[in-house]
């Protein structure tokens, strides 16, 4: 929907003046002089300790079984030092990729900071990835070490024979009685039980690589978006402005650090501000989420539209459960107007939608506090960000309000990604002239609000996670019944979009309902639940161009009830 006439939902007045986005001001607010080098891991942990605030609560952690632990910034400093020292002892060096493949346990956060202190590159991966998806990303990154737990180590072990660069697998939950089960090249480490060791942080610059986040495109394998220590300047600025986070806040970001929101705003932004983060290592349950907010007096909440739509299915909470909340934001996929209106009625305040990508590293367009919300709009560009809508054919800015085109940004900004790992040509293909192309289509209304229209490519955004059709189709080819397939997005009331596969079967296989379920489970077990097709159609053949390329856009248009466009290249 792009309706600039909708009645704005009442938004809270700006809680304070807009904070500065000037680089010098941001550096000063973080205690950095002009040009002064810094290490991101130390900035997020040691800095507050050096300022005398080491006793401040940094992390409230709770798991689904009710186990709770609190950690101060001094704990972050100490435990991340231990991790950095351990990795150095194992021969991991600056620039090496170290994968974090574990659920949201405390050691994930300590190890993340330790990797940065060492000058190595953190490669967080969603722990629900299955062996094939994991192997592909570890092989591409030539990962040197994987930090994981007993629950996920089998997936690493199954891929390891084909990962020659992988020197160490480090388990964080090995008990003395299970230690003998460790194999060659495996070791145990738990920062809370290891002896304290001081570590001198690697002398990083703003351009030193920090993170490698894998994201999906239309063609080829997932690509590793490379980020740098200096990205914290964008993340800090938007955390304190868009998320309105202050040092005395209790903040809950529901994103897993395997995805970029879980690092930019689930680790870096809030600890740069000096706020307390609450982490709930559990799955979804509306009642338990509301109780978590109440128990820890969460003041700022950042979640995803799919989670909001799942909350909408549950009974609304009692007002007392949400009494502490003062600000709520959303990210990952378009936030439908009904969700904004529902939140204001049922939760007492609206969700403020934000728009950004793995590649941009930080929020680019947002409904900042104080800006009246037009339900369904992603808001306006944040200060310092040059956003525009480009004509899809000429790549010139569109000036007509409401006209749809390509959402683009003009670099630089501190958190802009610096490349795709070993994929320079793909990186260059994301730019036209002075603009970075997001791959999304949108429009701007007369008031300057941005509206999401859809993807400009075949990537599927399901529950806020990007799925590349090529990865799904490649996995399907390994199923004995599948001759060829095409994966496209299909609208879904809960997940926004889901994967739908059109499949041509091999001779001798019948397209039964049982086979559909078997294929769904096959993708889930080989790639991830995110990539699993939610719908499957068996077809005699796939629409192709005369050169043999599958016309996914035709199948996608059918699913969305949109015009299929020019079919002159369609074969037969």
């Amino acid at each position, binding site marked *: 929907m792009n309706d600039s006439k909708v009645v704005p939902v009442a938004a809270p007045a700006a809680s304070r003046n807009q904070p500065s986005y000037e680089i010098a001001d941001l550096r000063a607010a973080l205690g950095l002089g002009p040009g002064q080098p810094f290490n991101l891991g130390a900035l997020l942990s040691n800095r507050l300790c050096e300022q005398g605030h080491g006793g401040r609560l940094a992390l409230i952690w709770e798991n689904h079984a009710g186990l709770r632990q609190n950690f101060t910034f001094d704990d972050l400093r100490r435990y991340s030092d231990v991790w950095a020292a351990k990795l150095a002892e194992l021969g991991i060096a600056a620039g090496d990729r170290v994968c974090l493949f574990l659920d949201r346990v405390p050691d994930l956060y300590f190890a993340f900071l330790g990797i940065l202190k060492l000058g190595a590159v953190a490669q967080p991966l969603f722990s*629900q990835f299955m062996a094939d998806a994991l192997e592909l990303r570890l092989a591409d990154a030539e990962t040197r070490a994987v930090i994981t737990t007993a629950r996920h180590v089998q997936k690493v072990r199954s891929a390891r024979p084909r990962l020659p660069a992988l020197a160490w697998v480090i388990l964080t939950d090995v008990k003395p009685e299970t230690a003998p089960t460790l194999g060659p090249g495996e070791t145990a480490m738990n920062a809370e039980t290891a002896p304290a060791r001081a570590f001198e942080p690697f002398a990083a610059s703003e351009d030193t690589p920090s993170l490698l986040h894998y994201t999906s495109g239309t063609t080829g394998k997932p690509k590793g978006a490379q980020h740098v220590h200096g990205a914290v300047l964008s993340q800090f600025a938007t955390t304190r402005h868009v998320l309105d986070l202050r040092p005395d806040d209790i903040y809950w970001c529901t994103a897993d650090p395997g995805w970029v929101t879980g690092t930019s705003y689930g680790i870096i932004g809030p600890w740069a501000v000096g706020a307390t983060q609450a982490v709930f290592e559990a799955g979804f349950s509306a009642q338990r989420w509301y109780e978590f907010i109440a128990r820890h007096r969460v003041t700022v909440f950042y979640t995803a539209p799919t989670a909001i739509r799942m909350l909408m299915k549950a009974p609304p909470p009692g007002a007392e459960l949400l009494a502490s909340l003062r600000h709520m934001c959303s990210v990952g996929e378009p936030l439908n107007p009904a969700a904004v209106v529902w939140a204001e009625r049922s939760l007492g305040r609206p969700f403020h939608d934000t728009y950004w990508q793995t590649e941009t590293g930080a929020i680019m367009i947002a409904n900042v506090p104080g800006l009246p919300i037009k339900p369904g709009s992603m808001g306006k560009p944040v200060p310092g960000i040059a956003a525009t809508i480009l004509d899809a054919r000429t790549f010139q800015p569109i000036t007509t309000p409401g006209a749809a085109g390509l959402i683009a940004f003009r670099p630089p900004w501190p958190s802009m990604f610096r490349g795709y790992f070993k994929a320079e040509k793909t990186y260059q293909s994301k730019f036209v002239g002075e603009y970075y192309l997001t791959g999304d289509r949108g429009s701007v209304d007369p008031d300057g609000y941005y509206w999401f229209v859809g993807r400009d490519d075949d990537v599927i955004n399901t529950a806020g996670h990007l799925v590349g059709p090529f990865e799904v189709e490649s996995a399907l080819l390994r199923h004995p019944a599948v001759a060829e397939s095409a994966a496209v997005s299909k609208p879904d009331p809960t997940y926004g979009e889901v994967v739908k596969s059109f499949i041509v079967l091999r001779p001798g296989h019948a397209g039964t309902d049982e086979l559909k379920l078997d294929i769904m489970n096959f993708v889930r077990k080989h790639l991830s639940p995110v990539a699993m097709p939610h719908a499957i159609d068996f077809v005699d053949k796939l629409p192709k161009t005369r050169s043999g390329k599958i016309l996914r856009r035709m199948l996608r248009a059918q699913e969305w009830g949109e015009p299929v466009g020019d079919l002159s290249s369609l074969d037969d």
Partner: protein
Amino acid sequence: MADDQQLARTILDYIAREYADALQGTPLDADTPLISAGLIDSLSMVSLKVFLEQTYRLRIPDAEASAEAFDSVTAIVQLLRRLGVN
């Protein structure tokens, strides 16, 4: 008519077999929280829903397919009973 225990056993066996990679040896009984404990991703719930629809020849409406309704085998059995499975 299958009793609740028979229904629960069929579903438990299916989950133990098909979601073994996700469960990684976690002991499972009819009251084990599946989604709220993070053992099964809420997206994985969809293939479980398809299994139930195929096995019991019914359609589970979207409004009924909540994370809470699928959070344990006991809750799933209650859902099936509500939808008329006997």
